[in-house]
């Protein structure tokens, strides 16, 4: 009986202390929140930017390398010293604890602006934006924002994917094109990219089919190469990819096939195979945002750039491209730039025969990156 009473009292005391602790924390939060609503300009020499990379920019090609090229461009444009850019590399984007630690280290070192470059950082960054209202958070490839200090940035890479599809469609002789995809149709970014590529292929080669193999990882050179080889075994003679390394390109090259890269110009890695790659010029966004944060004018609105902003493009066509590719691509590029080619406009059919977009309608950018689960009619997941 005595024990029971004691435990009861202890529980009550604990509950009370927890409640009061919450109370004080709440009041502190609200006071800092009111302070942060007005954003102040930051002097150039006091400005610090943190960058969270999923891979290592030193890899020389691929996703993190491309983001970092943009960071370097921003640094040069603004005239920041090396010590004013803090990089955290190889932060697994499925690991919320590691993500939080890396970002908090950046904040401790005095960063006023944090760029998180991979999809899985989004929720952690959203939480941290609440906890650190004086720090600006900008996250790539997602969709959330809070209107004060947290946004997402991404772009119409599907425009560039469409153009690379033209190069692939012109080149293939077996009319089978392989596509090494990081994620299945649960990931709209990947699926939308495949569909845009497939439409590019179809625009010049209606007979060709796109075989997709899913690796379920963004970054694994061994698996990516193995998936590409399996596609080559199925008779594909062009390999495209939505992956972070050059492994699929090299697999294609070693078998005497052709390839389309991603993120950065991969002609330098696979000169005998590479046709062209959809590429990002992240520097456009990084410079814009860093400048706005420094001037205190950043509005934390989501950013969605396209080919007309210079955010996305394809790398220069290599000499491996089929004759006439440059003209076809130029034609399509002009139409994209003047707005007459929207790519995802009706009528469109998926590979199960359903009409997913009616004549005269277009699919919104938000749906292409956030809500696309169907594959275009010439796509087969193998």
């Amino acid at each position, binding site marked *: 009986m005595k024990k029971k009473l004691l435990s009861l009292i202890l529980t009550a005391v604990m509950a009370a202390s927890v409640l009061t602790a919450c109370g004080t924390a709440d009041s502190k939060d609200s006071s800092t929140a009111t302070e942060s609503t007005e954003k102040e300009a930051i002097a150039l020499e006091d400005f610090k930017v943190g960058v969270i990379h999923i891979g290592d920019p030193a890899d020389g*090609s691929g996703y993190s390398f491309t983001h970092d090229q943009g960071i370097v461009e921003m640094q040069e444009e603004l005239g920041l010293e090396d010590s004013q850019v803090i990089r955290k590399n190889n932060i697994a984007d499925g690991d919320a604890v590691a993500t939080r630690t890396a970002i908090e280290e950046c904040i401790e070192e005095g960063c006023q602006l944090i760029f998180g470059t991979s999809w899985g950082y989004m929720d952690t960054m959203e939480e941290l934006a609440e906890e650190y209202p004086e720090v600006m958070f900008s996250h790539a490839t997602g969709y959330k924002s809070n209107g004060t200090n947290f946004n997402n940035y991404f772009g119409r890479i599907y425009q560039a994917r469409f153009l690379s599809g033209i190069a692939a469609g012109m080149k293939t002789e077996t009319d089978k094109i392989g596509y090494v995809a990081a994620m299945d149709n649960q990931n709209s970014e990947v699926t939308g990219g495949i569909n845009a590529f497939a439409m590019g292929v179809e625009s010049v080669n209606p007979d060709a089919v796109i075989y997709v193999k899913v690796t*379920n990882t963004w970054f694994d*050179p061994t698996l990516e190469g193995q998936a590409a080889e399996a596609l080559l075994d199925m008779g594909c003679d062009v390999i495209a990819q939505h992956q972070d390394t050059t*492994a699929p390109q090299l697999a294609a090259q*070693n078998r005497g096939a052709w390839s389309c890269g991603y993120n950065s110009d991969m002609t330098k*890695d696979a000169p005998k195979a590479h046709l062209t790659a959809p590429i990002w010029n992240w520097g456009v966004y990084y410079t814009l945002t860093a400048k706005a944060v420094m001037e205190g004018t950043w509005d934390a609105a989501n950013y969605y750039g396209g080919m007309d902003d210079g955010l996305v493009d394809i790398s220069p066509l290599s000499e491996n491209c089929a004759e006439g590719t440059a003209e076809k691509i130029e034609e399509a590029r002009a139409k994209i730039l003047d707005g007459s080619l929207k790519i995802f406009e009706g009528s469109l059919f998926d590979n199960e025969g359903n009409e997913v977009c009616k004549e005269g309608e277009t699919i919104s950018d938000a749906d292409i990156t956030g809500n696309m689960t169907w594959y275009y009619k010439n796509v087969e997941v193998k």
Partner: protein
Amino acid sequence: MIINFLFAAIKAGTPLLFGTTGEIMTQKTGNLNLGVEGMMFMGAFVGFFTGYKTGSITLALLAAFAVGVFAALIYAFLTVSLRANQNVTGLTLTIFGTGFAQFFGERMIAAAPDKSPKLPAELVAALSEKAIPLLGDIPYIGKLLFSHNIIVYLGVCIAFICGIYINRTKAGLNMRAVGENPAAADAAGINVTAVKYIHILAGGGICGIGGAYLSLINGGGVWNNSCVNGQGWIAVALVIFASWSPVKAILGSLIFGAFSVLQFYVPKDIIELPNAFYIALPFLITIIVLVFTSMKKSKEGAQPAGCGINYFREDR
């Protein structure tokens, strides 16, 4: 289709075969070296760098072997001479080797033209898959058995030689004695320290070649900072699967290699299984094998009794 699948399985399994054979040599002499991943990483970098600079396949493989020996020497000195904890030392070696390869790998990338260190064309040609004349022309079997790159054959040869060495030679017997009961071996006049050193070093060298396979063959001729990416750990699991026999490791690595490429060869429109299943499969099988070997009462195919325990002569 099946032939293509098995061909890809052999290609994927070969680095595991090297790692496993090397680790079996180490464990048979009574030392558990969890540094396989690190030794493979070091072999991967040094092998690639040597090939990149010299264009010679022999030098590349020798250099990978040498750095594997060097890595194992660190481990052997710490665990055999200084009697440090084997698990901790092995894990440290993994962390060290990974950092070693990435540190120098980054510098090699930064120094390379276009930031893309590529093997010379003649080396890529020498490493490519080639059919052996006549034998390679046999339908099906020719493609499956006689059309590989040269390192695959080397791996199978090393595994057979190690298997014969362990079970059919006097030196192999001494080594097993040291692994099972170092005190008894010591009393029988075997130099325990020397035997341990020799086999740990040889095992490390073999792991190093496995790493070189990953950077030279799997990498497609361009350096990648994450080329080993966990293969060393699978090799450690495979030692158990192969029940400490290098010859069984040939079959084991083929099976594990098959599992790793299985997801790309099972037609999705016929059998749809969650991807996690394919990733878990090798380890599920390892657990099943462990259960069966522990049910079997015979000593054969079990871990050497002295494995993981450091030997103090004074403790006898």
